[in-house]
């Protein structure tokens, strides 16, 4: 049987039979791959711990007729432990991997940008570099942009007229001018628009300096935006717990 080797982030696993799992991964070169990991649910399995969500691994797979089969696995970055030890991080990381799973629709189509974004996002979460809600929202906005749904937080998402504008429409794709503003849409604070722009562009100095009210407002808009643009709802997004056990800012 032909084999191939790749770097992969484990997105999710499903039980299969007595002791096996089907593992869904996002790989660097082969895009999304679903493979069978045999015997991993036995406590004696050496690869079970490496085939858990959020693990970054170096994996060798046999090409199967239907599903590929995991042959060898080595750990590159064991994010799983740091993430599972903090409930807030776990819920945010779960929302990230579910997003990646849904945005990368087809298996075995390269999705290098999505791979890099997810790995960067998990790395930032596990390393507690920033507030976990901000890391999640930045990841969501950028992953959607890579998938072809870039939100606009300055120019009007409908007519393109330069901003700043006052209204936000998830349906239209971001900020909308007074002419294109549908009725009943939100009018976020200007600081919230600036925070959203910073998250999309990776301007962490601005994002880290934002206040809790604008973070909450931005999170609500990002959730509305992502849920609207994904046909299948992200189940884990509604369960994100944005309080982290030991975040630098909460230790003040």
């Amino acid at each position, binding site marked *: 049987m032909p084999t191939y080797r790749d770097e992969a982030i484990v997105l999710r696993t499903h039980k299969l039979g007595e002791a096996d799992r089907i593992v869904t991964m996002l790989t660097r070169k082969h895009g999304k791959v679903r493979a069978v990991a045999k015997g991993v649910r036995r406590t004696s399995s050496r690869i079970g711990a490496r085939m858990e969500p959020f693990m970054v691994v170096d994996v060798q797979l046999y090409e199967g007729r239907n599903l590929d089969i995991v042959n060898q696995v080595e750990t590159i970055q064991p994010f799983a*432990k740091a993430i599972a030890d903090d409930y807030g991080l776990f819920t945010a990381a779960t929302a990230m991997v579910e997003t990646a799973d849904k945005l990368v629709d087809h298996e075995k189509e390269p999705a290098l940008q999505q791979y890099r974004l997810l790995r960067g996002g998990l790395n930032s979460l596990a390393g507690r570099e920033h507030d976990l809600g901000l890391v999640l929202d930045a990841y969501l906005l950028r992953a959607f942009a890579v998938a072809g749904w870039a939100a606009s937080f300055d120019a009007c998402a409908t007519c393109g007229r330069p901003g700043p504008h006052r209204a936000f429409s998830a349906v239209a794709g971001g900020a909308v001018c007074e002419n294109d503003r549908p009725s009943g849409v939100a009018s976020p604070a200007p600081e919230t628009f600036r925070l959203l722009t910073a998250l999309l562009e990776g301007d962490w100095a601005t994002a880290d300096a934002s206040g809790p009210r604008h973070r909450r407002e931005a999170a609500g808009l990002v959730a509305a935006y992502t849920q609207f643009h994904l046909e299948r709802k992200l189940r884990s997004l509604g369960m994100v717990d944005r309080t982290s056990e030991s975040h630098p800012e909460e230790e003040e």
Partner: protein
Amino acid sequence: MYDGAVQDLIDELGHLPGIGPKSAQRIAFHLLSTDPSDVRRLVETIQTVKEKVRFCEVCGNVAEGERCRVCLDPRRSDEVLCVVEEAKDVVAIERTREFRGRYHVLGGAIDPMAGIGPDDLRIKDLIARLGNEAVREVILATDPNIEGEATATYLARILAPLGLRVTRLASGLPVGGDLEYADEVTLGRAFEGRRVVT
């Protein structure tokens, strides 16, 4: 594909956990060649289970009455409560004969992608029990996988203000194995959970 009744049986068996199409076919043909009285006994056993067995109103374990065997046993300690995901975990721990306290069965683990959050588990019941009973230690014995660990992390956080001793089952090296064969995650957990010997 087989005709009518045989295929129906294969389909039904195939819905059971851990049974794929091939196993379903094997079991179906085994039943076909089995003595009718043996089959009848199997059917009756399944019916009895569905009629008689339910979940213990206190701990969520399987029970033949309102309360399970463990909850009814006066010799067991009320001071230690072991929290597990499923009733089958109770059976696994009972086999060790190491634990003499009581149990609380959550009914699963937190799994946001499957839509299972803390409110979908028997966590409120757990908190209520801790308020009423004489529990002094809670042992978190959820599965050593990501959902089990995250569930334990969540429980540890909400139990912290209650002032109880909260412990987590140690993750470690499989007995009978060689250290060099352990994966780094398990070995790391084993280091974290090391205990004093002198």
